[in-house]
């Protein structure tokens, strides 16, 4: 099932807070993933967990075309299980 943009944003914020051991209010939705020190292995892990939550596969490259929480949430919301 597709998720709404705000649900996806909340999921990514929670994920980063947990992985980076930060408070949710320390996560900036407009800051690029690499600015949080995420490398490609970390991005693959994140999109893997995101895919599991969504129930369809999100390619890791999406996080490079849409490198912030705000932009990836919009891109993921536009995906359907068929187009993902």
């Amino acid at each position: 099932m597709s998720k709404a943009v705000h649900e996806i944003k909340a999921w990514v914020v929670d994920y980063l807070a947990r992985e980076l051991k930060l408070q949710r209010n320390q996560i900036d939705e407009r800051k690029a993933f690499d600015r949080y020190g995420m490398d490609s292995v970390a991005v693959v892990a994140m999109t893997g967990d995101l895919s599991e939550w969504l129930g369809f596969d999100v390619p890791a490259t999406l996080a490079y075309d849409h490198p912030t929480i705000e932009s990836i949430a919009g891109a993921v919301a536009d995906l359907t299980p068929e187009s993902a």
Partner: protein
Amino acid sequence: MTEATLLEPGTAQAALANPGASAEAIQSHYDVSNDFYSLWLDDQTLAYSSALWDFTKPDDTLEAAQLRKLDYHIEQSQAARKKRVLDIGCGWGGTVRRLRNVHGVEHVTGLTLSEAQREFILEHSPTNVDVRLQSWSDHQPTAPYDAIISVGAFEHFARPGASHADKLAGYRAFFEKCYDWMQPGACLSLQTMSYGTTQAEDFSKYFETEIFPESDLPHLYEIALTSRPGFEITRVRDDREHYARTYEMWWRRLRANRKQAELIVPKAVIERFERYMQLMMIAFHTGRMGLLRLTLRRLDNPGAPLSV
């Protein structure tokens, strides 16, 4: 994964004797299981290297793109209807079969270091195909070749940790061998991954331990440097986006066949491949790695004095 090393890297002697990955290292990657690879490679070619996509066709398929890639190399090497063609790193034999069945080549020699690949080709190939479990460095042809194709093998011709001089010496030895084996004016069509915006240090640890033990990648300038003076490079393409799409297709096919894959190999192996495919998608998509397709023509009398 096996870490067997036949020769210690780092000496000129070792580099010249066998500069690339050992047979054990190649087998550790490619001998996982033919059945496992066939779950996500295309049925037609079983090519485990970048396809050549037609990005103007939204419904282009992996099969069509792989066949297009084979035909591209056959065209670039001018192999069609020739007598003798060599395929260095022949994989599961897609090019070998295409040369014999479609392009009218009389005799094809294929070299591979993988026993599983050799057995597969012998089972599935037409006549007049000679598949050898042999490194290029040991190959001794009985007659010159009219064309050489090498796709997805050059990646294994250097070892991480070897000195730059040894790496270049190994590449130079490869091009010198090809030169000696070819008819005057014949063409070599070469496809290899390359370092793009990254350096060896960024990749080698991951590559060496996780995916391709004992293998290092070239930079474009290293190929340009070491193919001289025997060859002129007549065409260069960096088709990295083609490889990003190829890896994405493989990843999607493996994901779709996950349950079957689990019957063939351990879950940990599947997860390693899925992670590897995604990392490669990123590397090619972002330009950290390149996918070079080069056409090289044998130059004769390269050292002849200029008449002025």
